[in-house]
């Protein structure tokens, strides 16, 4: 036991010693008698004064850092109460350090984020985490202080949470700058996205971004476009354009109003103007570009349309061959007129567009007519012909086809102005010639009957005359009857000549006689205020022509001459022989050199301009007012003269009268044989004993003819009509030597009868007689050229002579 006690005692003493040692160590430490401390691990010993110095230095450094730091330093206890704040922190917040100590740290945080911030700090720091975040504080003066806060938990030696240490950096400026940046970015984004212009960003051909309009322009979804390459997508229609644009951007830094075109997703090509800015220029390679695309397709199309419509207007209106204008329905002012209209009215288009419709259409000057034009009408209006006045005062007949149009709020009438003056004249002429035709037909018909009657009167007068002895007083009276009948026959002939229905049989004749024979009629036709002189050369040659036609030639020219002398004047007829040399003929084809009889008809009238002179022989050419001329007169003259182998020349000057010269070739025939002039005492004609079949529906004429032929010794078989004639021909025993027949008869015609009978009686001769031979009969081949023909009225001796001639002629 004692050993245990000793042992225990020893242990107590050891402990006491250890305690003393520890106390002494402590005392030595406290009194500064310790130089070094051995590390517990025994790996090293630390000199105590160095450690202290180091500690001191570090503390000093720490203090310096804390007090002079750019950052604010803030410590709080677990209840978030401020336990420390450095000067910097206080200045940042605008407080004195002393004011801050003891105040909850969250009080300084901007109210908006206070709770969340405090909660966050506490949670993290209690968990031992570091927190770094931006915190908005309110300065003492109320302004905002943005700080970047790094907070660490503080732990006491026992490892318990003892609060937080926070380092604060003033980031207000940076934050503001960032905020501004963000805001401007947002603004840019908004502008970019909502811009009505198509804007994209391109980087080396890659579409980095593009707003809604940009995508819309190309017709792609955004996703299809962003990140894709423009070349790959084939957006550029002309790759050369892109190269050119890039070159311009590189050179000038930007591009404005660059015209090009792009292909949309659908393949449609659209025109565009490009505006390009460099966003980020990089050395080498393509810069990053901000590209604005303005779709100009519609505008271009509109411009094109406008150009086209102007062109169309020019082509359709200005260049339209139909005269057109448009006038205001209210004011009747002409607001537009085309070239053709200007030509038609003799104005320039400028002059015309300063005129009123009243200037053009004189009839509108009456208010009532003007009102009718103003009256609103629906749709199209066709009207005319209306009388319109040219600049030179001449009047035009114009058919107006109009259409109401509205232009810029003005009610206009667009009118097409069809000049129908010529057509109107032609219509008038046609009417006139139809009238003449009708008159001619009537006259021809009447003359036919007249001729039959006159033939009878003349015939019986002659027959009666033969019975009287010379000196018998009865002969005188018969002569009167005869002269009266002859005058009637002459009038009938003139009537036929005038209506161009005379017999067309050329004969050798003395033109002088024709002219002389006409002069009486001309005197009546032409009027008293015109003096007529007729000069006929005595040794006049003969010509071969139809006397009736020649009469008409002279009459037509004379009538024209009369019309050229409305105030009266002189008319000279001259007939003489002329010899034309080659020089005289002037190389003209229609007048070969040779001997001619010339008829010159000269008036002292108004004369003609070269233009009119050129046209006078053309059918339907007339300078006369409608209804006054047919326009056929001189063309017939021309035709007749040429048909007769002659030529016609006209010499005229305005104000100096006109001369027509007609050249008819002379024929070498004895003068005597030419003119079978009816006479009271004809040379007795030789008769004969042949049988003649006489066919004539006019009984007096038939009886006369029979009488004459009986007297001449012929055997005459009488027939009333072709049927009668055929019957007689069949039943007659003896030969029939001659068929003497009228041309126009009921039932069948003379030529038909002749054709029928000559088949059975080929030896039979045929002589036609007629008081009226229509052109148509000859032209339609009813009368063969070369047929023997006797025109009514005829004198008995003419009949006898003609019959003898036909019978005596050898059979062809």
């Amino acid at each position, binding site marked *: 036991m004692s050993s245990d006690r000793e042992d225990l005692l020893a242990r107590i003493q050891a402990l006491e010693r250890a305690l003393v040692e520890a106390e002494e160590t402590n005392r*030595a430490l406290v009194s500064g008698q310790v130089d070094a401390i051995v590390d517990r691990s025994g790996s090293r*010993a630390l000199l105590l004064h160095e450690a202290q110095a180091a500690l001191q230095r570090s503390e000093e450094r720490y203090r310096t850092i804390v007090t002079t730091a750019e950052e604010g330093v803030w410590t709080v206890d677990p209840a978030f109460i401020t336990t420390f704040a450095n000067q910097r922190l206080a200045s940042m917040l605008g407080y004195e350090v002393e004011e801050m100590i003891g105040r909850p740290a969250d009080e300084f945080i901007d109210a908006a984020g206070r709770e969340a911030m405090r909660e966050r700090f506490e949670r993290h720091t209690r968990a031992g985490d570091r927190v770094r975040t931006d915190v908005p504080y309110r300065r003492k003066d109320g302004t905002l202080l943005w700080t970047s806060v790094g907070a660490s938990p503080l732990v006491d030696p026992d490892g318990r949470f003892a609060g937080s240490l926070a380092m604060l950096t003033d980031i207000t400026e940076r934050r503001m700058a960032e905020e501004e940046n963000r805001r401007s970015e947002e603004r840019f984004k908004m502008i970019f996205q909502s811009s009505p212009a198509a804007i994209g960003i391109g980087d080396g051909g890659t579409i980095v971004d593009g707003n809604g309009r940009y995508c819309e322009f190309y017709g792609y979804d955004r996703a299809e476009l962003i990140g894709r390459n423009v070349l790959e997508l084939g957006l550029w229609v002309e790759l050369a354009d892109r190269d050119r644009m890039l070159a311009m951007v590189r050179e000038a830094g930007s591009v404005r109003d660059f015209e090009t075109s792009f292909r949309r997703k659908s393949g449609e090509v659209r025109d565009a103007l490009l505006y390009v800015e460099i966003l980020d220029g990089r050395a080498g390679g393509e810069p990053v570009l901000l590209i604005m695309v303005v779709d100009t397709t519609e505008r271009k199309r509109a411009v094109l349309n406008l150009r086209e419509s102007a062109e169309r207007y020019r082509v359709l209106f200005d260049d339209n061959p139909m005269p057109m204008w448009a006038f205001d329905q209210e004011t009747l002012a002409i607001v537009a007129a085309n070239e053709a209209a200007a030509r038609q009215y003799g104005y320039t288009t400028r002059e015309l567009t300063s005129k009123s419709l009243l200037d053009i259409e004189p009839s509108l000057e009456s208010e009532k007519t003007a009102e009718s034009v103003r009256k609103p009408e629906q749709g199209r209006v066709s009207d005319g012909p209306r009388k319109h006045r040219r600049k030179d005062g001449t009047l035009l007949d114009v058919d107006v086809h109009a259409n109401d149009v509205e232009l810029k709020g003005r009610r206009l009438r667009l009118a097409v102005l069809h000049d129908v003056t010529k057509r109107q004249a032609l219509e008038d002429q046609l009417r006139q010639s139809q009238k003449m035709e009708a008159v001619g037909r009537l006259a021809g018909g009447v003359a036919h009957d007249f001729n039959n009657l006159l033939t009878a009167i003349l015939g019986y007068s002659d027959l009666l005359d033969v019975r009287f002895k010379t000196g018998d007083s009865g002969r005188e009276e018969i002569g009167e009857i005869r002269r009266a009948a002859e005058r009637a026959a002459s009038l009938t002939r003139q009537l036929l000549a005038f209506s161009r229905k005379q017999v067309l049989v050329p004969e050798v004749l003395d033109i002088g006689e024709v002219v002389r024979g006409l002069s009486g009629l001309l005197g009546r036709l032409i009027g008293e205020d015109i003096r007529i002189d007729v000069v006929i050369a005595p040794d006049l040659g003969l010509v071969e022509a139809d006397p009736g036609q020649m009469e008409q030639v002279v009459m037509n020219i004379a009538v024209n001459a009369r019309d050229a002398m409305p105030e009266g004047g002189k008319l000279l007829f001259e007939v003489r022989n002329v010899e034309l040399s080659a020089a005289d003929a002037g190389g003209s084809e229609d007048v070969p050199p040779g001997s001619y009889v010339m008829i010159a008809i000269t008036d002292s009238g108004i004369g003609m301009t070269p233009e009119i002179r050129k046209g006078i022989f053309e059918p339907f050419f007339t300078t006369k007012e409608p209804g006054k001329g047919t326009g056929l007169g001189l063309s017939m003259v021309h035709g007749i003269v040429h048909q007769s182998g002659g030529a016609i020349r006209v010499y005229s000057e305005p104000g100096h009268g006109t001369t027509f010269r007609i050249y008819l070739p002379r024929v070498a025939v004895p003068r005597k044989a030419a003119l079978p002039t009816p006479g009271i005492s004809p040379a007795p004609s030789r008769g004969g004993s042949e049988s003649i079949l006489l066919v004539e529906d006019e009984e007096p004429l038939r009886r006369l003819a029979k009488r004459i032929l009986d007297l001449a010794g012929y055997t005459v078989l009488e027939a009333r009509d072709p049927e009668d004639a055929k019957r007689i021909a069949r039943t007659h025993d003896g030969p029939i030597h001659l068929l003497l027949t009228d041309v126009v008869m009921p039932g069948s015609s003379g030529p038909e009868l002749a054709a029928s009978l000559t088949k059975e009686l080929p030896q039979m001769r045929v002589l036609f007689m007629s008081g009226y031979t229509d052109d148509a009969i000859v032209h339609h081949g009813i009368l063969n050229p070369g047929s023997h023909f006797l025109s009514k009225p005829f004198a008995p001796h003419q009949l006898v002579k003609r019959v003898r001639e036909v019978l005596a002629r050898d059979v062809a």
Partner: protein
Amino acid sequence: MPSLSLRLFVAGRAPNSTAAVANLEALLPADQSVEVELEVVDVLREPARALADGVVVSPTLVRVSPLPAVRIVGNLSDRDAVRRALGLPEASS
């Protein structure tokens, strides 16, 4: 003749260590009456030896023998107390 084995742990030439060496030499008897064996150990060089003797600070004087071991911490300026602790006779004054 009594013998005494001492071991003085010092920290290089630190002031208290230098003072401890000087104080110890001064207090040891000059009459050779006691055979003294003294070893000076620099803890800066040989920290492990300090720990082996249970020494945590320097300067510390350890009476290695006779046992029990005695540790005296500090610069040994209180020489009497040191003598007492070491069991040396009081200095005659």
